[in-house]
């Protein structure tokens, strides 16, 4: 009975249910449209698109993992890319060992880059990665262990808020530096690529790609329900209370560090899974995944989608990455302007939802495009435009003031009406 009631509860939220239904439908439909609809048809989904969608799902899983710690426990990790990349590297090591003697140098034991570096034997930390089961275990354990050690040290000494964020960013930055080294034994700048087999199947084949897509979707849905279960359990309530008033939760007798550590490690493991699913679909893993910019981008997926709502994180991950693909294909030099705009607008208008953010960022982009063009072409035109924008900005500030004023008036009237009508209840507060 207990079990059933939880399941019911999980499915009660309508947004989440809708999203999960759509995802489930996609998992069923996309393979069908790829395999059984003829290529000439309008409805046919090319394998390339299937892989791209699969990568989006991995990103969405990463966003979900981050939302679990940030949205529900207030831990803003600027280093979740590190856990993603570590999971990816564990998977990459397995895939490298699967190449066997089919590499360029034909060495049955050593991956190509080691032969290239004149190494004679496999480093000890590469042992066991030829075994798929062991490798999958490492996908969970390596990010989990790092998160455990780092989190244990950080939470124990009550490093919170901004300090914690900066430390996580430094963590991924330092890891990036380390993985860039050739001597570190992970392929340096180039990372791992040229994968051949995964669990005995050809990585390049259509069937494998569809299987990977379906796996990504299933893991995402599974992770969604897991996070849902965690956040809606009693522990989830404690987590939220830690997010909102950590000292109070501690005074009430909860071991705050333990809760934080648990959810941090869980989130790191989910990120590791996302990375492991990502690597065979992307066909490469290299230190760019450790870049602080990537990790902070993940944060903005969550922020845009809606922090503290699991389905929001998934939507954010999908939407931003789709936008990114669009811009980097159509006008690559504009993408960082757009991303910057999304950062600013989604934080300022954090409460107004996805659509507003997207619209505003598109507006921001259209504002900045002529400016960016002018700066490279004509200096005087640039100055002129800069002046025009300065005027626009200052008038915007002026109107913003008016808006604030109006808002405070409205708030005042609301307060009066509330006073007259609604009695205070616990529900109204939340």
């Amino acid at each position, binding site marked *: 009975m207990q079990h059933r009631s939880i399941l019911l509860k999980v499915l009660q939220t309508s947004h989440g249910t809708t999203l999960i239904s759509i995802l489930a439908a996609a998992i069923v439909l996309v393979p069908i449209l790829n395999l059984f609809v003829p290529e000439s048809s309008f409805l046919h989904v090319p394998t390339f698109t299937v892989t791209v969608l699969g990568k989006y799902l991995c990103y969405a899983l990463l966003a979900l993992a981050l939302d679990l710690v940030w949205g529900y426990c207030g831990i*803003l990790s600027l280093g979740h890319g590190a856990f993603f990349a570590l999971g990816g590297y564990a998977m990459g090591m397995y895939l490298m060992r699967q190449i066997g003697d089919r590499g360029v140098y034909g060495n049955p034991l050593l991956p190509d880059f080691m032969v290239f570096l004149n190494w004679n034997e496999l480093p000890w930390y590469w042992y066991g990665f030829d075994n798929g089961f062991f490798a999958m275990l490492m996908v969970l354990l390596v990010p989990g262990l790092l998160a455990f050690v*780092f989190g244990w*040290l*950080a939470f*124990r*000494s*009550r*490093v919170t*808020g*901004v*300090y914690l*964020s*900066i*430390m996580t*960013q*430094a*963590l991924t*930055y*330092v890891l990036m*530096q*380390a993985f*860039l*080294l050739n001597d570190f034994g992970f392929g340096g700048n180039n990372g791992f690529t040229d994968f051949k087999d995964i669990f005995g199947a050809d990585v390049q084949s259509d069937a494998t790609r569809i299987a990977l897509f379906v796996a990504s979707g299933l893991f995402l849905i599974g992770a969604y329900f897991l996070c849902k279960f965690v956040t809606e359990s009693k522990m989830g309530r404690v987590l939220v209370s830690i997010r909102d008033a*950590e*000292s109070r939760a501690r005074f009430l007798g909860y071991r705050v560090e333990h809760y934080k550590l648990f959810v941090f490690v869980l989130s790191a493991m989910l990120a590791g899974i996302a990375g492991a699913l990502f690597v065979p679909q992307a066909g490469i893993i290299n230190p760019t995944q450790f870049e*602080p910019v990537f990790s*902070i981008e993940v*944060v*903005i997926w969550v*922020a845009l989608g809606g922090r503290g709502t699991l389905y929001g994180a998934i939507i954010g991950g999908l939407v931003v990455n789709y936008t990114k693909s669009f811009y980097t294909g159509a006008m690559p*030099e504009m993408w*960082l*302007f757009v*991303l*910057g*705009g*999304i*950062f*600013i607008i*989604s*934080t*300022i208008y*954090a409460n107004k939802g996805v659509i507003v953010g997207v619209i505003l960022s598109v507006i921001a982009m259209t504002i*900045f495009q002529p*400016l*960016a*063009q002018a*700066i*490279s072409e004509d200096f005087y035109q640039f100055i002129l435009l800069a002046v025009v924008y*300065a005027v626009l*900005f200052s008038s*915007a*500030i002026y109107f913003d003031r008016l808006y604030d004023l109006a808002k405070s008036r409205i708030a005042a009237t609301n307060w009066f009406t509330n006073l007259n009508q609604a009695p205070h209840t616990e529900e109204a507060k939340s």
Partner: protein
Amino acid sequence: MKALIRITALGIGLLFTLVSFAQSTEQTEETAENQPPNKFAERVQALNGRSFNAKIKAIETLSESKDPRVLPILKAMLDKDQGLYYRKSDDTIVTVEEVEDGLQLTDVLTGEDLGVVGKRDARKIGINNKVRNVLKSAIAVLELGADEKHIRLQSAQNLLKSPDKNLLSLLEERAELEDVASIKHLLEVAIALIKIDSDDQKVRLQAVEVLSSSVEPEAVNVVRKLAEVDEAGTYIEADLKVAELADAKLKSVETKLAMYRATENIFFGLSLGSVFLLAAIGLAITFGVMGVINMAHGEMIMIGAYTTFFVQQAMPNLIEASLFVAIPLAFLVSGAVGVLIERTIIRHLYGRPLDTLLATFGVGLILQQAARTYNSNNVPVITPSWMSSAWAPNGAISFNYNRIYILFFALVVLFSLALLLKKTLFGLQMRAVTQNRPMASSMGIRQNRVDALTFGLGSGIAGIAGVALSQITNVGPNLGSAYIIDSFMVVVFGGVGSLIGTFFGAFGLGVINKLLEPSFGAVVGKILVLIFIILFIQWRPRGLFALKGRFVED
């Protein structure tokens, strides 16, 4: 730009030689009396000997004569662009200048204008590397007679690189006369470097003594070589006594060297620390006063560096003074951008530090991409000549002037900021807002204004840091992001909102970084520093100098 500088340098050089020429011809009249003029002319003529060895011999005999005309002649001979020529018709040695319809000849002996001849009528006197080395040391010895200290020092240093044993007697004479201790020491080392090759054991032992008292790399290398042993453990050097002495002395030399290396490392650490300090002060202010994490801080630094570039573009003739224009201008530009960002974006986000982090990161991305759209490569910022050389008290250690200046500059900035905070009304208001925002507000301090100005101040200091950084690193779109993480580490390590904390944090991390680097490498050093900081905040979660009181929590 570069061409212009080269031309000016060439012009100055030419002027210099002309002046020295003029001087030399004046003095010739006195000295020429002691010497039959023909003999000197003969010696000069010998420079155009048939073989290189003959030329070397001629150079050595020439340099022993006290004639002041020798130096410019030898210099001209060594000069890659100029060179000595001889007229084909009568073998007169001349210097030439290219003119439109041929070569303008000048007699090196008399300075007489010999008119313009066709390009084929005069020929360069060829030299090879061996001749070049002899020339160099001969010139160096001659220049040891110069009145200016820095010319003598320079020539003594050149002598160390290629000591010529035929000039030994001259060198000893000069060393005898020299009264500046450091130059004298260099000369003695040079003499010892020549004497070490002699056959007399006593002379060699003495030379080892001299060499082992010095830390010049040339001397140290010789001592090391003498003390070398082969696989069986016996000395390679045939003369056992010399080898033993060298071996005994080597230890103290190595300790000295290690000490100098450590000093240099600490200096590099302090220099890195000063860069951290410049980059982090602004962060510490905005973080401490407003609780705002400015991730665009690195881009403010970048704006400062680009301002330097634009200033230099605008005043190409005044590069030496450009930095003094760039510093206030960079402060204003970055500060204005800072105020604009504060008024448009950050204003909405007070009390939500993590959101300011994200929003300012977006601002940083946009600014970075704007710089990249302007020019995706690094832009060339020129280092003024007064910043570009190095101060080298001896051969084992040297300090770059730009790093020394930046070190002092960082301290000056810190000090003036401390003054601003302690002594001005604005500083008072800022401190009040830092310590208790609502109370300061009730006392009538206009928070908005203080916030905007504080953010502008922090950004302006970042701009100044950009000017300093443009002198020691490449200026490009990625300049800011390279320093931002280190700056945050400094703030976390030192303690938020405390200038003294930032000071110790910056220099502490700088020195730790540079001390770890030689033995672990840069990357592993960085990892160790991060681990160190993580462990450090176990002990002091709020940094070295934490603000105390209730307001700190949450």
